[in-house]
């Protein structure tokens, strides 16, 4: 018989718990008194906080955090990574998100101490390299989008939208225009209407026509003196180019409205066509999409906004500028104000600029062409089983509808997404855009090989064929089964709200 010993408390952490096994929380691994390491010795004697701070504000007891060894810590987070899909692991055709491969050179750039360890409030004489990075990236973006000036500050696309709409508002105010509404197609991403409201305008939804495009005639019916502008993506969210964009621009400009370009889909047209040449006045780009900066499990992103010359004076500050004596920081004369605590998600700029410099102008143009080639190739391959919502040549992504599969077999877009997870692929975006019934929005990106596209197409087709058998179709409601978690009960999460370990009971 083994000698008796009291339980150690906590859970063993060195036993591999690979992908499929639930991982305890870091708090479950905690054992009182354990720690990862010591802090540096400053040579300064530790004083009593009560001698320095108002006693009534001092904590009664230390704040409890997990108490683990570094080995436990590393084991825990490493096992969590085994339960996580990522671009580096495999194909991630999440429409509208441009999950392209993120070249590692940018990681190395981001880690250079003169990039990573610079204080944002250091005097300009100490940040000349950073200001040059900012100015150069602005130049690249204005060339790519066909605009005159840019701000890098918005931290993501949505913040870029709001920044752009406030610029729109400042423009109208400066001209004495009284505008109340912004037009948005019914295919738009949710951030667009949400941003319109936050900018103080009313969002007015414009219907798309049967070809998935803005219906210019219908649009004319919405255009009046109260229209501040329109927000469009081009290509739009069904992956089609709005060929009548010049007519749309003329219509909006005829009431002194402005055109806002949501750059989420810029990956289709870099070096091919430019929003500025199409008549757009304000353009945001998503560095975390088009320019290959990693998505970070949900962020950070970066949403620079570029504008036409007559809007440059409204850009947010502080603003890096070139002067005769190097770089400086300024505020545009009629600036809408500051939009970020400092200069925005700066390290993301360095990554994006490194990517752009590596590809060069021609490489960027080839990037877009191959993104469009991949999308059309995949679309054609699966077309017999997954009809595209709209037949024409798509840009860098496309939307298929599984409405017929659902009608015939009861298998929904969501079930197909889950079945794909079992095949080792990330799922496409589902149920967006809202104008397509049972939508799968597929964006392969240019970094996937033909072999990967073929394998994905085969899996998709095999899944479609499975739906023809009623038993197999029924079992698809239970997919996935090979993933770290099986289908997750979302309704229960909302019903029994537990958003921290301390809320469990």
């Amino acid at each position, binding site marked *: 018989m083994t000698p008796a010993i009291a339980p150690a408390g906590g859970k063993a952490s060195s036993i591999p718990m690979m992908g499929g096994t639930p991982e305890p929380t870091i708090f479950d691994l905690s054992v009182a008194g354990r720690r990862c390491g010591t802090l540096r010795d400053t040579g300064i004697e530790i004083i009593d906080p009560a001698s320095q701070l108002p006693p009534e504000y001092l904590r009664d007891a230390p704040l409890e955090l997990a108490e683990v060894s570094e080995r436990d810590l590393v084991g825990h987070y490493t096992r969590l990574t085994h339960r996580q899909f990522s671009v580096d692991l495999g194909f991630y055709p999440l429409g509208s998100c441009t999950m392209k491969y993120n070249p590692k050179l940018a990681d190395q750039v981001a880690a250079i101490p003169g990039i990573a360890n610079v204080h944002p409030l250091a005097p300009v004489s100490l940040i000349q390299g950073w200001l040059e990075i900012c100015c150069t990236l602005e130049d690249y973006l204005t060339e790519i989008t066909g605009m005159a000036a840019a701000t890098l500050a918005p931290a993501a696309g949505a913040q870029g939208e709001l920044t752009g709409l406030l610029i729109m508002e400042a423009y109208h105010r400066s001209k004495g225009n009284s505008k109340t509404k912004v037009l948005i197609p019914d295919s738009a991403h949710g951030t667009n209407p949400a941003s319109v409201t936050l900018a103080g305008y009313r969002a007015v939804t414009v219907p798309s026509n049967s070809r998935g495009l803005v219906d210019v005639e219908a649009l004319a019916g919405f255009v009046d003196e109260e229209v501040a502008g329109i927000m469009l993506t081009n290509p739009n969210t069904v992956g089609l180019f709005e060929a009548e964009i010049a007519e749309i621009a003329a219509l909006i400009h005829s009431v002194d409205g402005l055109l806002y370009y949501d750059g989420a889909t810029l990956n289709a047209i870099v070096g091919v066509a430019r929003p500025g040449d199409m008549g757009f006045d304000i353009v945001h780009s998503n560095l975390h999409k088009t320019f290959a900066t990693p998505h970070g499990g949900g962020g950070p992103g970066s949403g620079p906004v570029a504008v036409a010359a007559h809007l440059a004076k409204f850009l947010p500050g502080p603003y890096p500028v070139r002067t005769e004596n190097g770089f400086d920081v300024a505020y545009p004369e009629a600036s809408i104000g500051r939009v970020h605590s400092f200069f925005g998600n700066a390290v993301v700029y360095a990554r994006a600029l490194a990517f752009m410099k590596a590809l060069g102008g021609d490489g960027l143009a080839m990037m877009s062409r191959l993104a469009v*080639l991949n999308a059309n190739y995949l679309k054609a391959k699966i077309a017999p089983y997954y009809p595209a919502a709209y037949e024409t040549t798509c840009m860098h992504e496309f939307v298929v509808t599984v409405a017929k599969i659902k009608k015939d077999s009861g298998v929904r877009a969501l079930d197909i997404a889950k079945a794909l997870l079992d095949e080792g692929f990330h799922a496409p975006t589902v149920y967006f855009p809202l104008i397509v019934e049972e939508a799968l929005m597929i964006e392969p990106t240019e970094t996937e090989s033909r072999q990967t596209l073929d394998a994905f197409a085969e899996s998709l087709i095999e899944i479609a064929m499975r739906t023809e058998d009623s038993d197999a179709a029924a079992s698809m409601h239970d997919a996935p089964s090979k993933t770290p978690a099986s289908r997750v009960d979302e309704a229960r999460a909302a019903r029994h709200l537990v958003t921290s370990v301390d809320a469990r009971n």
Partner: protein
Amino acid sequence: MSGFTPHTQAEITSMLEFLSLSSLDELYDSIPQALLLSRSLNLPEGRSEVEVIEEFEDLAARNSPVSKELLCFAGGGAYDHDLYAATKALGSRSEFVTAYTPYQPEVAQGVLQALFEYQTMVSRLSGLAITNASLYDGSSALVEAINLACARTKRSRVIISEGVNPSWREVAATFSSGPGHQLELAHLDSSGCTIWPANTSEVAAFVVAYPNFLGLIEEISAARQLASAAGALLIVAYDPIATSLLKSPGALGADVAVAEGQPLGIPLSFGGPYLGLFSTTLELVRYLPGRLVGETLDTRGNRAYVTTLRAREQDIRREKASSNVCTNQTLMAIWAAIQLSWLGTSGYREIGLKCLSGRAYLTDSLKRRGVGEVRLGRGSFREFPLTIEKSPSQVVEDMASRGFLAGVALEGRLAISNFDSSLLIAVTEKRTKSQIDSFVDALVEVLK
């Protein structure tokens, strides 16, 4: 950089043939000729990755990072704390770095659980039950807090203390114009405490910082009483390192607590990417901006995580959503959670003690040597204003040439009333006794 795209010429040809196309350009037939760019982009040619990295090394050489050659005593919302090797190593794992928003929870348990644990930690720091999965930075967290308070109270008047970071106040002003919030500034007195207005009718929220931008502790209870009397919410902008020694904002009655999470293991990064911390009460959860991770079960009955209460968000509520945030700062949230777990209960407290002790050592020494006027108000944690006779920005320049980032000049847009001609100085656990001694020596010389 050929190799970024995998296609061989033969593959491109075969794929085009499959599509019955003869060139890549034909893919763009739906774009009217007049809109096609008829030239190449006016950008430099591509280069190999080693050349690009060298180019950035040259650019980086024209920056002065904080280092042994430039000892950092600057804060002002961005602090030079130690970053542990495990935080960097684990936070750089590509499963976290190259994933996106966990739309498919069955293959995103890693990010979801890391966020759930992050929410737990930040709820403990803030003392408030509900924490979201991050916002862009401290200033965007403040903006969302103001929007929440105005939505909740159906009022638009917001009283904001001058002790809130001036840059955050600028951001709040920018984003208040759309919804039509009225921001009113409550100035600081010469001890660094907010002078709240007498008329508090129809106030949606009082915003106070803890410690404030000057590093000083204010009467949070006074603000709480005013808020309660006015039927307003109390928004507290806190410092997530100071809470190692100080009571949490929630314990002091905050309805919403926001913070800049950068001090929790995120490099200075020229100001971003940083991390907006946002916490509120369970009662206000339906007004919460951003994503929220909840615990649930999968069909096998195993514990699993998923984003929850999604009906608040822009993709579902669209123009009726109270926030437009989509992409957030998840990776930075994961870094913060790893760093906090590395520190653990005792390490976290020790950081606070070392910051406080270092700050006290510096201020004692400045007082002893008669350097400027050290202003500690009702108490300072790791930062304080030093009022001096020379121009603070000039002093920063002079100190830089001696190897110190001496602080943040409270001038121009960072000016604070009653604190003219002052330098804001911060001491973290990184600063040793001998570094502080040489800092004081240099400052004595520069101020002579």
